[in-house]
């Protein structure tokens, strides 16, 4: 690291920092859905990665569809497919909640196992439908390339788009949870399920909707993911551990904590990646997070609960 001049080192730090920001956006997108499902409902959704991949495949289909039939609108297909991805993953999520999860609310560890079975089935379905090979989408021209900021620092446009999407989704989730009727009901149920039901909240439907929205956000994450990487049937499993750690590290019930932990984990990883090999950076980051969690199990931002 001493072979670089000071300005070069600064540029490297800035570029790595920006790469970290893109990773951060992806983490935030993935973790937000999980934070809703895990933080608000206490359900461990091991199939979260597969819901994400569904969003990615929806984007892939839309990219082919627009490329083949609506080339005029191709520049805008990404935004349309993000919305489609939300509804596709959300609908699947609602179905899974109805078919499986609602029977298992009293057995959190069993939910973990059942949703893992769902993830296996979804993986096989993806493999049968889309093939075992990874697929990539065609990125519209305007998203290619990068914006030069200084001589040494360049900012990729697709990364900026992912960041913008992460910001929008975070805002949306915040509005939904803290400013909408649904959000009020979810929080009421979390505080006291029996009383919430007694004042007329349809707890079953709210649970289902919560699960659906969480999965829908995962779908949007998958859609954003196609902008920076390709999609394979088992890609979801690669991210599930990171995502869970982000949520747990942040403090399960806190949205702000989720964002803060996504930021610290992604920055730590991308800065270490420059000095160490990629796998060692990952190992060190994960070890650090696990160690901190062992010392402080409630995570960064613990929500104070009166017990």
């Amino acid at each position: 690291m001493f072979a670089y001049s000071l300005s070069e080192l600064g540029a490297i730090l800035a570029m790595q920092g920006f790469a970290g920001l893109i990773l951060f956006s992806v983490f935030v997108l993935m973790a937000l859905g999980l934070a809703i499902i895990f933080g608000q409902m206490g359900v461990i959704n091991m199939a979260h990665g597969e819901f994400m991949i569904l969003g990615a495949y929806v984007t892939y289909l839309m990219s082919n569809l627009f490329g083949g039939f609506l080339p005029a609108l191709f520049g805008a297909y990404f935004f349309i497919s993000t919305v489609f991805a939300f509804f596709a993953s959300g609908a699947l999520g609602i179905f899974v909640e109805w078919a499986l999860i609602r029977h298992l609310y009293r057995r959190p560890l069993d939910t973990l196992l059942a949703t893992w079975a769902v993830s296996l089935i979804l993986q096989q379905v993806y493999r049968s439908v889309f093939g075992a090979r990874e697929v990539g989408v065609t990125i519209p021209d305007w998203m290619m390339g990068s914006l030069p900021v200084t001589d040494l620092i360049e900012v990729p446009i697709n990364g900026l788009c992912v960041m913008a999407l992460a910001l929008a989704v975070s805002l949306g989730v915040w509005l939904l949870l803290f400013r909408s009727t649904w959000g009020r009901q979810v929080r009421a149920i979390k505080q006291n399920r029996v009383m919430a039901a007694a004042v007329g909240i349809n707890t079953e439907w709210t649970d289902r909707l919560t699960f659906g929205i969480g999965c829908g956000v995962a779908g949007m994450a998958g859609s954003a993911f196609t902008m920076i990487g390709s999609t394979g049937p088992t890609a979801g499993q690669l991210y599930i551990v990171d995502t869970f750690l982000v949520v747990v590290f942040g403090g399960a019930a806190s949205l702000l904590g989720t964002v803060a932990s996504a930021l610290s984990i992604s920055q730590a990883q991308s800065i270490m990646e420059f000095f160490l090999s990629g796998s060692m950076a990952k190992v060190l980051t994960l070890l650090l997070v696990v160690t901190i969690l062992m010392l402080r199990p409630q995570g960064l931002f613990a929500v104070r609960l009166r017990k």
Partner: protein
Amino acid sequence: MLARMTGALRFSPAEIAGFAILAAVVFLVLPLALDTFRLNLAGKYLTYAFVAVGLVLCWGAGGILSLGQGVFFGLGGYCMAMFLKLEASTPAATRIQSTPGIPDFMDWNQLTALPWWWEPFHSLAFSLVAVVAVPVALAWIIGLAMFRRRVGGVYFAIITQSLAAILTILVIGQQGFTGGVNGITDLRTLLGWDIRTDAAKEILYFVNGALLFACLLLARFILKSKLGRVLVAMRDQEDRVRFSGYDVAQFKMFIFCAGAAFAGVGGAMFTLQVGFMSPTLVGIVPSIEMVIFCAVGGRLSILGAVYGTLLVNWAKTTFSESFPELWLLGLGALFIGVVMAFPNGLAGLYADHVEPRIRALLAWLGVRGAMPAPVAGGAAREMAPARSVAGGRQSGRSLQARGGASPEPGP
């Protein structure tokens, strides 16, 4: 004290029958019915049964679900593989390498000397101790950090799962020291005895079976002793056990370490029988699959766990040989079915449907005292929660379970 010990050692007739039938299956039926190749495969499955039995202790009895048992299996296996690899890498056998006398993968990765932590694995005694000691030491550290802080349930599962991920990435990333994604391969002899011959494979199968039975008896002893009772009580009402003056964390650490030790032995036997060890047996997916074996067999029954392991693996081999597309779908469906409909797995099915028939048949034949009364019968029944697992804990308790996302200790 002695009376209590012998009380835990006393077998009921039904238990003797259960162990005898399993022994007959493992030591007679399988060796007689299968050729050496298939027998070796069955031996490989039985190494997973060590892990499944350990999970019965941790998860079924203790209520601690670990999604990182593959880590302990892998550590045990790697300790054995390191010894075997060093024995296979004599300077004479590796003279074509640029540095003779070190394992081949180290040479490929431009290492010129054996890392210091490989040195002790020249000794078989050290390696055999390490097979158990390394997994137990790691489990003890994890347990010390987590159980003392009363982290349990879902949080524990996620942390152990991330450990599985960490170890896999580490082993794959450090290929100069660990053999990377290929693992440690080309293992030949154990103290000069060739482990690749058919005769050796058959002998190893029986050694494996004997070790499995030793573990089963040990697990049964733990479950039947007072310790086992405390574990079950702790799983169902942790706070009450704590208020009664028991150190809950100590019990959890003990049972978690016991599960890790079993897994380590299983891993070492895997290495000996299959002839390699690789990170594909350590990661997240194999760790969860081991939980499946345990769940299918019945998370409350040590014998059920062995049958579950054999059955799921047999199905996996058969399906993936003939219908590779269907295997994951089948496994997923099987698992959903077990979780939703049969939370006590095969052992639960046996206790609910087969055992009463046998008892009725015996009564009809006029055999008295051949089977104990239903209340005392079957380990699974004794360990089951007051209401069946499927029924769940009712009302007030369930609220706590739903809000259980918070890691803070209970009220």
